[in-house]
């Protein structure tokens, strides 16, 4: 059987922008004032008279990407992709709130929790799922625009919906940072131009590109040096310096010890 991949399949043309999902999420996850774990984006309205008018609303949240730039930006692995669920998770105990992952998300799906001082984002309502409930946004949605499930389990509602709309699935990606999101929009969705290029913070980039190789060289060099000295020590008899000075006592002892080691 395939590994599970929790995902959301969204028919955004059903969305009426009522913000029920946003409110529900805020309560369920105690999201602090001014921050959000999910959203409804609006396309620019086409205010034409008669048949040409329209606007599209697009619900979203963390897309639990297959190629998560947030995970790449996290030095500690506090943000990681859980192979057992396919979810991008945050280990709050390990996160030190450096904010790298926040800048690295092309969707702005993350924020820094002001009181916990760690990164926070959608976790498909882990607490609710532990209680046998669905994610808060999904459960509350008036028009059932959001469908959640394991898309690798063919019997799940999400997988069925995805399969039924295979040829008309849209993923919202940034041209410069295709993170392979696991949020699938059915048919046309809009807006598509709101993502940002994932920004790897400079310190992290430096650590990856320069520091790590540099330090490997430095440590390797030191190690080689130590090995060379050890080699020499093992290959040469006790120090002549000491002998020259008539300190036989010590020299003998060392030699003895040396002999022991060699034996």
């Amino acid at each position, binding site marked *: 059987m395939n590994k599970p991949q929790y995902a959301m399949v969204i028919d955004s043309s059903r969305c009426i922008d009522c913000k029920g999902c946003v*409110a529900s999420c805020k*309560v369920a996850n105690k999201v602090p004032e001014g921050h959000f774990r999910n959203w409804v984006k609006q396309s620019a309205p086409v205010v034409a*008279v008669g048949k040409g008018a329209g606007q599209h609303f697009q619900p979203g949240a963390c897309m639990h990407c297959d190629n998560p730039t947030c995970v790449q930006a996290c030095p500690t692995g506090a943000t990681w992709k859980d192979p057992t669920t396919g979810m991008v998770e945050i*280990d709050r105990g390990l996160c030190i709130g450096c904010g790298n992952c926040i800048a690295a998300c092309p969707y702005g799906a993350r924020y820094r929790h002001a009181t916990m001082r760690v990164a926070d984002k959608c976790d498909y309502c882990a607490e609710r799922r532990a209680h046998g409930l669905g994610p808060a946004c999904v459960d509350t*949605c008036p028009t059932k625009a959001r469908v959640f499930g394991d898309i690798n389990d063919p019997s799940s509602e999400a997988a069925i919906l995805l399969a039924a709309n295979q040829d008309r699935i849209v993923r919202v990606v940034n041209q410069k940072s295709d993170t392979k999101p696991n949020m699938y929009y059915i048919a046309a969705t809009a807006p598509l131009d709101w993502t940002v290029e994932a920004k790897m913070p400079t310190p992290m980039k430096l650590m990856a590109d320069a520091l790590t190789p540099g330090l490997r060289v430095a440590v390797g060099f030191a190690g080689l040096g130590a090995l060379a000295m050890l080699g020499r020590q093992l290959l040469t008899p006790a120090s002549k310096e000491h002998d020259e000075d008539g300190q036989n006592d010590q020299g003998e002892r060392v030699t003895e010890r040396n002999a022991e080691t060699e034996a």
Partner: protein
Amino acid sequence: MTPNKARRISRRGFLKAAGAVAAGLAAARPETVAAVAGSPAATITEWESRFSACDMCFNRCGLIARVENGVVRKLDPNPKFLKSRGMLCARGNAGIAQLYDPDRLKYPLLRVGERGEGKWKRISWDEALDLTAQSLQAIRKEYSPSGVMFMAGSDMQSSFVNRFAEVFGSFNVTSHESNCLMSNTRAYLDTFGEVPFPDVLNSKYVLMAGANRFEALVTPDSMDLMTAMRERGCKLVVLDPRFTKTAALAHEWWPIKPGTDMAFMLACMHVITSENLYDKAWVAEKTYGIEQLTQHVKQYDPRWAEGETGIPAADIARMAREMAAVAPQAMVYPGRRSSDYVNSTQIRRSFAMLNALLANWDRPGGLLGAREVGLGSGIPFSAPWYDENPFERADAGIAPLMIEHEGSYVLLREAVLKGEPYPLKGFFSFKVNPLATAPDRAKSIEMMKAFDFSVVVDIAMSDTAWFADLVLPAPSYLERMDPASALQGSSACACVVDRDPVVPAMFESRPVFDICKALAQRLELGEFFDFDMAAFRKAQLKDLPGAEKALAEDGVYYNPSKVYGIYEGRIYKTKSQKIEFFNQRYADEGLDPMPVYNAPKAVPDGMFRMVVGRSAVYTHSATNNTLLRQLEPDCLLWINPKRADALGIKDGDAVIVQSAVGKGQAKALVTEAIRADTAYMPTGFGALSKGLSLAHGNGASMAGVLESNFDAISGNAAMHETFVTVTRKA
């Protein structure tokens, strides 16, 4: 009080899930353990799940409260609640912010300064109840029982306020309804004999005018409309001067000139009658006055309507034909709030008549009559007779077809201010806030100042409470036991809900039922309240044997009553006992028996017509909510760029919006999404009460700007008759 039934939902689901989590942990890599340890799911605290019914608007959606250690953690939709299609909107979710709002009233407060000054003294409940009883009694003695005005909002306990008013002896009972939907109610009563439930789910064509169903949510219509559109090929056409979210998602949007909807409907009827596009047999059998209608609408052709509405004649004719083609599965959506023009009843009559012409009454995809729910009225009473009472209500005799038991707030207020036809010196209100929702706030303030004694029962210091003499704290809907309530949801359901406390009442709050009961005892009317809520509810449910069990297990009871064809062999409650195109009663009263078009007043140069509307986030004046406030923080005044440019207003500018009766400051939203002659802003901003920390002084008050007009037939407030200027704040 009866203890809470502690309805618990099966824990099987929970245990299964918990097992799955444990298994997952065993298999996961070490990080998983830490991830769970670091997240709140680590300690899966027990939630108790309790049913209730939402009260954040009038819909009463079934909900499940998740309670953790006596604290409500989350409100979830009750998936078995068909009327709402198992949803809970942003407001429903924000009920928790209302429950735990630090601005909640905590104990009885007696005014000590001037009215509206905001100086209060905490008093005991005994003092408060004694004072209220004595004051009401004094007014009753001096001016008659009808000298006290009663006003209660939409609430499952409001009927007890009405009961108290009735046994106290006052005719002058009103509610929020006359600021909302009375003209629509009147129009449908006078066409079909009852107010319909639109079967949106099965409709093929919904023409929506004067309604905004994807923002002003009505269950199940809002959800069903989307399902019908996405899954059943229903077409939605929206007529609205504003590009609402409903317009945004419609197949067609026509920015109709405000106040000309009737012209559109008359022209549609012109097309359908002149082209014989209606079901002749059905119309002949069920309706009265088709000949007169055919004759009447001859004058209203689409070319004429184009001049009035701004919608091309060809499109009007096309839409009429499209509707006729799919009739009876086509409808003009009846809508709710119709407090817009001085001829709103006639406007809405034209909606109702077009529906009749589409032959959609009592049929799938059309307008449905009320289904049988079977809920009893509880514990009956017959109110005492008071000889000293005047002949009729103080607001009577102005709007000829005012609905007697609802009255008219604006007319009643006029009576208070004038002291005619007789003095109204007392005021008892519960969960209604006319100072923030009715037009002309300045007049409402004068009204509050004209009372000898006013008492307001509410959960927070509303603007109305702010100007009262005594304010009594009520528990929110999550903290009290309520009677059962019957709900209809077109073809979705006919059902019963009730409420038990999800958590105990906070502070010193007391339900209005208890207040009415305590006052009745003090006024020697105790016999009319000689029961408790549990007994009342039992009496209500006595003819529904399975109801109590269903309510306990599912949070809702359904009566599987007949949906369609319920009028087979039944007469319509109209004078002709048929569906009336031609209304004989109107003719008798000297009113137009069929809607005669009168163009709305022209918008004066340099001004805008102010229109009222809703978002999915706020209900009326309920804007003092920390959660909802984050979703819509600003009071945005919508104006068209053409006008904004001329006025030197840029998007986001602070603007002053001013009418003949008041002004306020809002933030400009310069947008093509509104007609150039029209302005819009949300209701519920710019509160006067300092007891509402988020709403106070924030934005402009719609109530403060709107002028007071009313519909000539029903007495319903007319809120689209106000012209305003908009200027950039210097």
